[in-house]
């Protein structure tokens, strides 16, 4: 069974993990970074504003996140600080983020140091003013910390500062600076610059002997980089063939597909489309009209637009592009939910590629697993 997966975000990676477990021969194609590479580090099952009644996670999803080095999904919800100064619930999180549920009622020191985009005093003020901090009596205090960076490094972007902390020496230096600034704090909240690879944060925690963690990352921050590093490690350990190239067209049907990849042909028995929504740009489907016949793996209202014969799966978010007259995002076709759509045999869609709103990371994982399960014929 040769499975081609298009897309290297959360859905595509989960699909690859699942299909390899089922014994399929998997090739994963991806080109540009998508939504997961821009992620904040919070892992939701539902958009967090609606997450009051979070249903339990499927065992497969938990098994995947356990295999994924950069992420922790526990049995209960976590709570993380966003870089914009709110404390928000989340089902799981990038392991480098600080879970404040674990330190409720304690005193959290917020690093106050001149590092790109980080304003410790504003952060502490905003977090302390929030309802959760008041309710639990958790205190956030800005603590001036000096010596984290060399003077020549003071204008580095946050991402580069994170890369510095991948080295053991620099991680040790950071831990020492924090200890010197305030030895009695119960925990430390720092900006999104604890390390660009998974595991760097854990190193600092061990050295300091207490909870240290980041706020969420802004778009394009280190959380996305840690996702990519963990993904590459996982795919490599699973024996997935990874090709960093754009799939220009997909043709064929049932159990014989041809992918046009940068001018060359690639053959597959089944295809998982995990091409993302707004960030993807889609692929050309042939014959035209094939979008009518996609087999969605998530039960949800689906909006698919065609521009020429380029598939555009619009997942909303941001301004109403269509109202602004952006033709590439014109939404011309609406598929029914999974039950109602005619299935294109052998093509399975997962993640943001079919959604009426941006999918959360854990939703994409679940959709990827479901698509691969069906593709590998285990269902």
């Amino acid at each position, binding site marked *: 069974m040769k499975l081609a997966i298009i897309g290297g975000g959360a859905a595509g990676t989960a699909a690859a993990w699942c299909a390899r477990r089922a014994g399929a021969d998997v090739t994963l194609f991806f080109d540009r970074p998508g939504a997961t590479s821009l992620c904040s580090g919070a892992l939701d099952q539902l958009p967090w504003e609606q997450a009051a009644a979070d249903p339990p996670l499927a065992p497969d999803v938990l098994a995947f996140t356990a295999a994924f080095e950069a992420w922790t999904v526990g049995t209960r919800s976590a709570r993380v600080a966003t870089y*914009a100064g*709110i404390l928000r619930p989340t089902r799981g999180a990038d392991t480098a983020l600080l879970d404040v549920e674990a330190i409720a009622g304690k005193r959290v020191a917020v690093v*106050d140091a001149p590092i*790109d985009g980080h304003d410790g005093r504003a952060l502490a003020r905003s977090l302390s*003013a929030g309802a959760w901090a008041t309710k639990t009596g958790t205190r956030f205090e800005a603590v001036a910390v000096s010596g984290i960076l060399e003077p020549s490094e003071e204008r580095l972007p946050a991402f580069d500062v994170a890369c510095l902390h991948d080295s053991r020496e620099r991680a040790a230096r950071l831990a020492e600076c924090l200890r010197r600034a305030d030895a009695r704090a119960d925990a430390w909240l720092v900006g999104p610059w604890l390390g660009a690879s998974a595991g760097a944060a854990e190193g600092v925690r061990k050295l300091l002997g207490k909870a240290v963690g980041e706020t969420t990352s802004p778009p394009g921050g280190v959380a996305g980089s840690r996702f990519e590093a963990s993904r590459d490690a996982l795919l490599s350990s699973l024996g997935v063939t990874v090709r960093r190239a754009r799939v220009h067209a997909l043709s064929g049907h049932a159990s014989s597909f041809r992918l046009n990849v940068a001018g060359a042909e690639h053959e597959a028995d089944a295809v998982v489309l995990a091409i993302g929504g707004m*960030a993807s740009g889609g692929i050309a489907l042939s014959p035209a009209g094939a979008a009518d016949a996609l087999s969605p793996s998530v039960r949800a209202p689906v909006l698919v637009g065609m521009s020429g014969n380029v598939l555009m799966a619009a997942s909303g978010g941001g*301004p109403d592009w269509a109202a602004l007259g952006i033709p590439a995002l014109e939404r011309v076709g609406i598929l029914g939910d999974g039950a109602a759509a005619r299935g294109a045999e052998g093509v399975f869609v997962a993640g943001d590629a079919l959604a009426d709103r941006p999918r959360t990371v854990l939703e994409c994982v679940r959709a990827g697993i479901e698509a691969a399960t069906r593709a590998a014929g285990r269902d």
Partner: protein
Amino acid sequence: MVDPVVSRPDVDVIVIGGGVNGTGVARDASLRGLRVALFERNDIAFGASGNSSGMIHGGPRYLTYDPDVTYTSCLDSGHIQHIAPHLLFRIPFLMPVHERPGSVFELFGLDSFFSLYDRYQPLKHGKPHVRLTAEEVRRLEPGIVGKLAGGITFDEWGIDGVRLCIGSAVDAAEHGAEIRTHCTVTGLLREGQRVTGVEFRDLRSGSAGTRTARVVINATGAWAPLTMAASAVESPRARVRPGKGIHVYFDRRLTNYAIAAKAIDGRQVFLEPWQNMSVIGTTDDDFYGNLDDCIATTEEVRYLVQAVARVFPAVQDARAIGTWAGVRPTLWEWGPNEDALSRDHRIVDHAADGADGLYSMVGGKLASYRLFAEEMTDEVGRRLGVTAKSTSHTSPLPGGEEQVDPLTLATEYGVDPTAATRLEYRHGSRSRRVLDRIRDVPSEAAVVCPCEPVLEAEIRYVVQQEWASNVEDVSRRTRLGSGSCGGMRCAARCGAIVSEMMGESPAVGRRSALDFMERAARRRAPALSMFQAQQEALAIADVRSSLGLESWKTES
């Protein structure tokens, strides 16, 4: 006249509108010792003044049919350079002429035309035009395509219209004027035929009030119909023909020269280097939409890019990152197409309309705002018996008092040299006041907006000294969030700073950041490429989730 013994009005002059005319007349009147109150419904330079081509050009376009406009524009351009030297930068123009039948005569015609314009150039310290060979045009701007017959260069001045208005408003305030932004005039106070003041409502607090005055000046530009309706005054002479003009801007400077090009309908448009980016402009179309929410459309963007691409095709691959749109308050006339309308200005005394004491300032151009303001204040002076002459062309605008060297500032205060250069452009000699804050609180040296860049000290300064009350106001004054990221990297932090200074909760600051980003996204979207638009939609969704969608309501 009001009997001064019985009731002394609150102020001498009320100005409605915080654009270049309104702030200009508020300043001129304050300099002459009059007591002034200015009301602005949105923010200083919210309309045409802050969304123009950013030039105080002499208007060679008007030379053939409106030479007076050219003369007054050039003369006043010279005065503005004298009072605000820090705000001006030279923009050399390049007009390529392509080879085709008659191009020799076209070049000859242009040469003669600009010889005429050269006579006005000394008024604004401009340089005379130069006729170029095809080879010279290509050497100056290698990106220009097509078989060239030659070209012409001439010289204009660029300016940040917002900073000009802020300068006038600050100067007025320092001479005693009361400046109220986000405060709309809802009606006039009257005693019979006489206008004795205004009713207003503060749009942030919702509170209403009145101010009495001896004279009320309507300087609301394209908003004039709204002002007249609120005033219950009917006056055909104060009518404006609203002409929407849009600009598209890029993430960097694409050329050294402004390049003139012809649009599909024969209109002249240009690609100009402006501050730290390049700008294409402009359109001119009758506009009857919502003035408080005027935004460029994709079609307008395509029209401009297509025009410039014919002479400078690289513009199609350049990264357009946003648009701005404004509505010109041109003098009303039925018939002519938009470009042919007069750019002259007119003062209307509404005594004949049954509103004695009310005046309207109609029409005008950024370049001749000062003269217009002087004429208006002269009229007010005659009425009130004030004999003081205008000094608005000799006394410097705030920051224009002396020249400072940005690199010296950078060393002296230990800030980023690029940040110091940009700061010095905006604040001139007042940069020291901004940077002195860092002496007291060193952490204010932090770069909040890395694209522009903008220091925390400047954000705090414009909140304290220049009436900024939210992220968008700060952006207008400092260009924070105007670069390629659209505020994704700085809006949240700026909101936190502003809310703290305003004594508001952090949640209000987050709301303000979100409002800014949403408005910025709508202004940026028409200019973005497809892939960029997709990435941006994603990133905005992400930022929104970090700011908390609705949580500001409950978490405050």
